[in-house]
């Protein structure tokens, strides 16, 4: 069945540079530098990326960073905990806006 998301398309990501090579070059250089070992290990960075991939709901990123996490030595327990961190922040971000709701409602109400 044809879908908008095709797993094989990920391998063509580089094609995005065809009509804007300089910008793509800068992006991919930056991307590579970000994921290199630094103050954080490559494993820790892959776990962050996996969590963010779920927050932005990118199937390509979920595929890539599930594999990357396993290949960097993480296990399913750690990967699942990372998802709960992003879920807590995402849910918390909604819930904390309830304060706005309350303030507005209190102002409008008798």
């Amino acid at each position: 069945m044809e879908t908008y998301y095709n797993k094989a398309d990920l391998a063509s990501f580089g094609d995005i540079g065809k009509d804007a090579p300089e910008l793509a070059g800068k992006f991919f250089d930056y991307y590579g530098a970000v994921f290199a070992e630094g103050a954080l290990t490559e494993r820790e960075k892959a776990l962050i990326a996996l969590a963010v991939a779920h927050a932005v709901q990118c199937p390509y990123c979920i595929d890539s960073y599930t594999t990357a996490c396993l290949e960097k030595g993480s296990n399913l327990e750690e990967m699942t905990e990372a998802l709960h961190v992003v879920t807590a922040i995402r849910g918390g971000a909604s819930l904390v806006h309830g304060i706005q709701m309350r303030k507005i409602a209190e102002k409008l109400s008798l």
Partner: protein
Amino acid sequence: MNTCDFKKELERHNLQLTRAETTALQVNIGLACDLACRHCHLEAGPARTEMMDEETVSAVIQCARRLPFNTIDITGGAPELLPFLPHMIESLAPLAPHLIVRTNLVSLARPESKLLPELYRHHKVIISASLPATNASQTESQRGSGVWATSLSMLKELNRIGYGVEGSGLQLDLISNPAGAFLPAGQAQTERRYRQDLQRRHGIVFTNLYTFANVPLGRFRAWLEQSGNLDSYLKKLSGSFNSCTVAGLMCRSQISVDWNGFLYDCDFNLAAGLHHGERRIHISELKQLPACGTAVPVGDHCYACTAGSGFT
């Protein structure tokens, strides 16, 4: 992908896979094992009965007496299941500077193996133990239920008699293979993590950790096929080909002997049935070390040893 692909890969890089100076003898004592690990390239397990007989054990020892090996490496199956193992250890230990015995840890924890750790300690045998992960779920998904607790308990016992303890001179190395169709993490970072996790959570120490890719042969290949991972895994391996690994591949400096006494360039070629010198040569016929420059037969499984940092 077929056998020729790896040959073509070497040709593309203007490389040849030929033997260098032989420094190591690897002895595969057979396929009997008390575990049936899902990544096993030999399909070893409790139902297998192939084991080295006394005559072949004797031929191996005689070979080690007449030829100079720097390392002798005993593997299987589970070496602990071989009744002649203590005799092999006592005979081979004086013949090479380094004698390695591989273990799945569970076989070493059997009551029948009770005397082996002390025998290893006495002869300063290097213990090379499989531990794919620092958590129970990945370890047991690869090696079977109950393996995690037994492995930890055996590692603690080996630590207790000095193995892996700095300054003891008793080497305890860990071997980690990924628990699935993905490549291993970098060795240095994985070793750091193992040291931290095993010491902090379990008080276990070790000497070195080695990470290796799973080889697409035997039970692991069957799982790759059944799970629909074979093509993508082979592509991943071939896509990670690193020409720099070829010079240091173990098949160049090691000769492997199977439980029947026949020779191969490595344990993976043994599993694939690719004989050293492309013919059946018995270890009793090995009067001198294999000639440098002899071609090493290859197959698509060879990509597992040349992926990333390689398998040396």
